[in-house]
């Protein structure tokens, strides 16, 4: 039976088409084209495109971290809380008179610590990721509300606000704001880590089959810990960008962000059962969601249509993925 199918249709079809990110890329192109036709005056402009890229960065970089976690066979529900905690930490540092760089670094350190705690629970204490991060989601949210005394924290951003702001006159040569560029570099670095290093293979191996990974001599708890901690760094960066947008520390910010992040990864071909996913796919997934939001606004469709469309995209993406898999078998 198996030899039949391996020589069957899937053997003849272009192997490249089986890459997970092809689908999301097509969807991005199609939807962009659609909105470009429907709102041809406002949508296909440099301005709109740059704005969309800026808006995608927070979900996008968090989705890059989530990609590693989902490839590992895990999940992280505490992303939103960790982002809020980061904005609060950054604001508190700034208000304490520290510079922009030190404050951003402190924010990232806080999120990394959150990631490491998740990693320790999941890796060394063998908690189910869903449960462990459900716990830290609530815990971190409470913690940052406490730190901020349940108030927004105003602070002089000392230049952090420029990370995502539209480029001022005279710096158009950069094309995109610094924050977007740093995000792109981080995403590429993680993509290379997953694709070209031993550690990257180990992440896929653990996600594919934990017992088999163990049998290959892979230190499974360490891999899990490392992935969650590294994802924490990326969530920290997402938090700094979020602060850059808000220019306040907001303990009630980003509630439910993790669901957008998970949706981006799933649209991008990540499988919640582990072993599959790609950074490029996830970033495209995040971009797709922004395109739907922006496009609907430009066309004048109400919010509820956007939500329905996003839902359809998620279901269709997963459905197509299943078909792609069945071909492979």
């Amino acid at each position, binding site marked *: 039976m*198996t030899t039949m199918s391996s020589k069957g249709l899937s053997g003849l079809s272009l192997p490249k088409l089986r890459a997970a990110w092809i689908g999301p890329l097509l969807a991005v192109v199609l939807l962009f084209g659609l909105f470009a036709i429907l709102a041809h005056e406002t949508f296909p402009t440099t301005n709109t495109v740059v704005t969309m890229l800026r808006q995608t960065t927070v979900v996008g970089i968090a989705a890059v971290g989530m990609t590693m976690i989902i490839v590992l066979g895990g999940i992280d529900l505490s992303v939103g809380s960790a982002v809020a905690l980061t904005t609060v930490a950054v604001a508190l540092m700034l208000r304490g008179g520290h510079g922009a760089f030190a404050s951003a670094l402190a924010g990232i350190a806080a999120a990394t610590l959150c990631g490491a705690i998740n990693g320790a629970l999941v890796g060394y204490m063998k908690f189910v990721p869903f449960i462990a991060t459900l716990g830290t989601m609530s815990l971190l949210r409470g913690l940052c509300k406490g730190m901020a005394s349940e108030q927004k924290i105003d602070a002089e951003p000392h230049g952090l606000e420029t990370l995502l702001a539209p480029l001022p006159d005279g710096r158009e040569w950069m094309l995109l704001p610094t924050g977007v560029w740093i995000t792109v570099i981080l995403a590429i670095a993680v993509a290379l880590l997953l694709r070209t290093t031993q550690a990257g293979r180990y992440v896929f191996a653990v996600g594919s089959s934990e017992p*088999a990974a163990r049998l290959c001599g892979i230190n499974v708890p360490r891999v899990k810990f490392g992935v969650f901690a590294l994802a924490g760094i990326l969530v920290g960066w997402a938090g700094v960008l979020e602060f850059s947008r808000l220019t306040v520390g907001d303990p009630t910010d980003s509630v439910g962000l993790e669901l957008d992040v998970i949706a981006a990864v799933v649209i991008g071909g990540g499988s919640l059962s582990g072993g599959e996913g790609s950074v490029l796919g996830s970033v495209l997934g995040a971009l797709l969601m922004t395109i739907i939001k922006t496009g609907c606004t430009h066309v004048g469709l109400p919010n509820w249509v956007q939500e329905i469309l996003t839902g359809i995209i998620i279901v269709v993406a997963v459905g197509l993925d299943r078909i792609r898999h069945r071909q492979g078998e």
Partner: protein
Amino acid sequence: MSASVLHGPASGAVGLMARGLQKTFGATRALRGVDLEVRSGEIHALMGENGAGKSTLMSILSGAATPDTGSMELGGAPYRPSGPRDARHAGVLLVHQELSLCGHMTVGENVMLGIEPAQFGFLRRSEMRAKAEQALRSVTGKEGTISLDARAADLSPADRQLVEIARALAVPGCRILLLDEPTSSLAAGDVDRLFVLLRELKQRSLAIVYISHFLEEILRVCDVYTVLRDGQVAEKGTIADTTAKKLVLAMSGGASSAGTSPIEEALVSSEGEPTEKAPVLVVENVAGVKKPSQASLTVHRGEVVGIAGLLGAGRTELLRMIFGLDPVAQGSIKVASHSGGASPARRIAQGVGFLSEDRKGEGLLLSMSIADNLTMSRLSGLGPSGFVKDGAQRESAKKWTDMLAVKMRDVGQKVRDLSGGNQQKVALARLLHQEADLFLLDEPTRGVDINSKTQIERHIRALAASGKAVLVVSSHLPDLLSICDRIGVMYRGRLGEIRPASAWTEHALLAAATGAEGNT
């Protein structure tokens, strides 16, 4: 004990009858025309080697599988269960070998699972309790020790087995009880308790089909027997007229034990006793947490040592302990000059490779490529420190897949797409790539087509010839006899003496594995 042989024509109405059952799975003909007649008030032993067709037959009787051809009758009426539920309604109940209680639920809830008395969808608690109590007491006696409110997970294996049986008896109209290896997880005292119960059930004119590998148990408790071999009935009769020796002969097929295999010619090169060579693995009196209970062996460079035994005898557990996957409770394991703690990573560094019997669950990373699977246990050297270069990885993988003649499109193909035999070759190739000196192979030829099987066996001999040490576990006795230099048999967790392969026959191995050795 002696009063139990009561299968006279009076009480022996035909309970369940099967005629000409055939069943094919893919290319395997699991059953090729099996007849079975189970009478009420009788304990009917169903015997055969692994793969003889016992499990398939049980599946068909219990409704989990439908036969390709053949017919069945239950109490004189045609019996064609559409599924396990239907079979239960008809009164045919299977007690699984793998205990299948819901650990989080109470004993009472487990006993009544699926047959809860209810009205408009609401449970009738008191009636449910009364019925569960009744079923449980019929198993444990009036002063039973098992509480209805105990959590199933907290029970001992023996008590769980009793609850399983109670669950079957609680089904209204239960008349045929199918027991699959009911004693494999029980201690000797509990086995006695179970047998007392089985004899009682027999008096209540239930028909019992009893599958077991343990001959002495069958001789003690069963009335009649049917031996399956290669999907056919090899022999049947009454227990009173047979001996352990005859049963072993019937299971092994007598003739095949005398023949020598063609691969034996390959053995000629290693004719000399390998005792001069350095020991690679020394296992002394080890015991695991549950199994094995006692095992000692030494494997030298250039030899293949085999371990025979039944499923569940503790062979797999022994290999896993050596590889550091399972904890060692007692004794010592020394690999080359290394003693002390073990983990798979450390063992791999010491030059040990392990091939899992569970190819899909543990052996392979099914969603990953052939190249990834092959190189995963030694990625270093495939690129600058910490990196893996695709080209280098593919090249290394290609080298081994060519050598082992793996049939595939490309090393980038997912392992999931390969056939069983080719998957097994990839799993074996991983050990070659990691440059292991000691190969621990658990059922290396299980579920593998005949061509791949011969190739894999040839590779194992070649490994030994090149100075590697191999420890192989297999349930297929002719294979062991043809590839091993020395063989030991594990029986209920104890590894017997390791003797040269020439000192064994298939018959003798089977006798030792089923515990018939001391009986006759």
